[in-house]
């Protein structure tokens, strides 16, 4: 379009670059200008890297209990030490803490032992795990030089399990449930949304009423009731998929609405009419001509739907009707922080909540940026 308006003799290099760019390139250029969205994209990428290989970043086996380190406070990571001769040298370590008992209440009291430190090493050997679930290895990003010494970057819970490692492991489930749930919603949403928007008429009317009805329902009570009906003795993996399915049973409505809206506005576009006059089949029109031109909108809506899924799973698991331990998700971890006594003793149990907030913020920023960039011709 831009190219046609230009005088054919002297297209400036910058303009020709825009004129010949593909839609995805335009989306990318427009997205790149959005600082917060770029930050969101980077953080999201990092979170998904962690979700792919949580054990590599973990320091302790997430389900390992330690009766001698109950409610252990967080140990800060120090990178440098001051040597005896006053020089500073690079030696990552944490301060060792000593366990004492309160003589009256027997509550554990941890005191920093200034004389002793636990030295850390990058790419240290730790507990065995499978990288990407395939490659057996013992290498972790960081670990103590002495494998018998446990370190707690974010403290430990009531069973002495390492909160840091558990959050990383929970990242895997929480983030993947967002992806899988949205994928399922998208499947239903695109199917019904495109039928509704493409055919219009009575089918559209019925589907729209169903969507309005679903959107008018309070989600959590229905999710809870559905989740409560799941048999408790099902294997963890099946349970996980059923929970995801339950979440997407309601989640599809919003996506279907977006898809339908785009279909309706595109249906009367000239290029669709042209394709139809050319004798292209319905399938070809939908998939070859219409879908690519609103793909970017779908991507944006999907990105904004993932945090909603994550929050839903967190809420459900927090209430005890979502995922069940020993499966670790951020919601399951937050159950530990449910009663006021344990969070007063161990405020670091809020840490999984911070992880949820960071992940949701990052995805929201990313989605917002994508939504703004989704229509590059509209500038």
């Amino acid at each position, binding site marked *: 379009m831009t190219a046609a308006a230009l005088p054919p003799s002297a297209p400036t290099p910058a303009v020709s670059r825009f004129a010949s760019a593909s839609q995805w390139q335009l989306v990318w250029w427009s997205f790149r200008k959005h600082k917060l969205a770029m930050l969101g994209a980077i953080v999201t990428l990092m979170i998904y890297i962690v979700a792919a290989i949580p054990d590599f970043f973990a320091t302790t086996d997430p389900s390992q209990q330690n009766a001698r380190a109950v409610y252990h406070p967080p140990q800060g990571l120090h990178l440098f030490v001051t040597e005896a001769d006053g020089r500073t040298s690079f030696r990552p370590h944490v301060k060792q803490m000593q366990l004492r008992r309160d003589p009256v209440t027997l509550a554990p009291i941890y005191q920093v032992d200034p004389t002793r430190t636990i030295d850390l090493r990058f790419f240290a050997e730790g507990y065995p795990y499978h990288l990407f679930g395939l490659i057996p290895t013992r290498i972790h990003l960081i670990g103590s030089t002495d494998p018998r010494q446990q370190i707690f970057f974010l403290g430990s819970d009531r069973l002495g399990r390492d909160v840091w490692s558990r959050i990383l492991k929970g990242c895997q489930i929480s983030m993947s449930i967002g992806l899988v749930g949205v994928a399922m919603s998208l499947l239903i949403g695109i199917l019904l949304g495109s039928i509704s928007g493409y055919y219009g008429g009575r089918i559209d009317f019925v589907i729209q009423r169903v969507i309005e*009805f679903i959107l008018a329902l309070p989600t959590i009570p229905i999710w809870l009731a559905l989740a409560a009906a799941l048999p408790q003795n099902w294997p963890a993996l099946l349970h996980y998929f059923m929970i995801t399915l339950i979440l997407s049973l309601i989640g599809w409505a919003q996506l279907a609405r977006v898809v339908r809206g785009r279909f309706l506005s595109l249906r009367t576009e000239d290029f669709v009419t042209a394709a139809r006059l050319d004798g292209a089949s319905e399938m070809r029109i939908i998939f070859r001509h219409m879908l690519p031109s609103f793909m970017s909108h779908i991507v944006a809506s999907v990105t904004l739907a993932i945090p909603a899924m994550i929050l839903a799973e967190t809420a459900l698991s927090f209430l005890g009707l979502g995922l069940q331990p020993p499966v670790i998700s951020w919601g399951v971890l937050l159950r530990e922080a449910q009663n*006021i006594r344990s969070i007063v003793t161990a405020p670091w149990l809020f840490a999984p909540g911070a992880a949820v907030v960071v992940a949701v913020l990052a995805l929201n920023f990313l989605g917002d940026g994508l939504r703004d960039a989704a229509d590059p011709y509209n500038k």
Partner: protein
Amino acid sequence: MLGFIIKRLLWMVPSLFAVSFLAFVLIQLPPGDYVTTYIATLAASNEIVDRTAAAELRARFGLDQPFIVQYLKWISGIVLRGDFGLSFEWQQPVSELIWERMALTLVVTSSTLLMTWAIAFPIGVFTAVRQYSIGDYFFTFLGFLGLAIPSFLLALVLMYVAVVLFGADVGGLFSPEYQTAPWSWGKVLNLIEHLWVPVLILATNGTASLIRIMRANMLDELHRPYVTTARAKGLSEFRLLLKYPVRVAINPFISTIGWLLPNLISGALIVAVVLSLPIAGPLLLQSLMSQDMYLAGAFVLLMCTLTLVGTLLSDILLALVDPRIRFD
């Protein structure tokens, strides 16, 4: 206008029917039925129920009949006699357990709605008028944060802060002396004193999105020619804002009740569990945990009905304010 209201009211009939059907399906979903659970509880206390007694119980509750018949019995009991069935866990009619809690749920959600509006409206207008000012960025950031923090986490943090800093427990809706007392002025005042904590927590999420909607609507209107005309006429900036762009921008504001209310009911459920408020949420959760399905079904039905009625009200209100919808 009357035609619109009648049409909208008629739409409620299939919706309410669908909701009641959904609630009944949820009641029926868990394996086994009321009698199986009842026998299990009796067996736990070493009482043995023989097969004929079980069959008699089933016949008494109509559990041996097909699904549709059971549904019709259940719903006609509710509509005609206000009878929601029996809660097996409490050994009481469900209707005796739910009404006070539903009323308090209504109090909490409606005051949250008012609070959300009261906060979001001025901030939304402000951030639009002073676009890209420090205040705008501050509230935009706050809004994003409000969207990202789950309400139950906020409730937990607030509870923690209250205990650590003030040594106070912010849970509950009443002081201990009023908890079981009959309703009186003192109890109402006590309720109002306790109400602000859950209301504030619940309002954050809705406020965040409402501010963004209000801001976007205002920005659409602020550069319209009619605003310039009004300014050229010499209208003071404040009156100008309230008289023209705000009136147009407020329309989608009203329609938000439709989606805000379902979110509020959902959010109130979790926050109520954390803060142990005597509203519908905690009892619903407990009934689901113990598979006390008639109680759970009644709550699901009433909560859904509440949001449907809320959506209805917002639609009618919107038609009153916006003639374009009325004459559509």
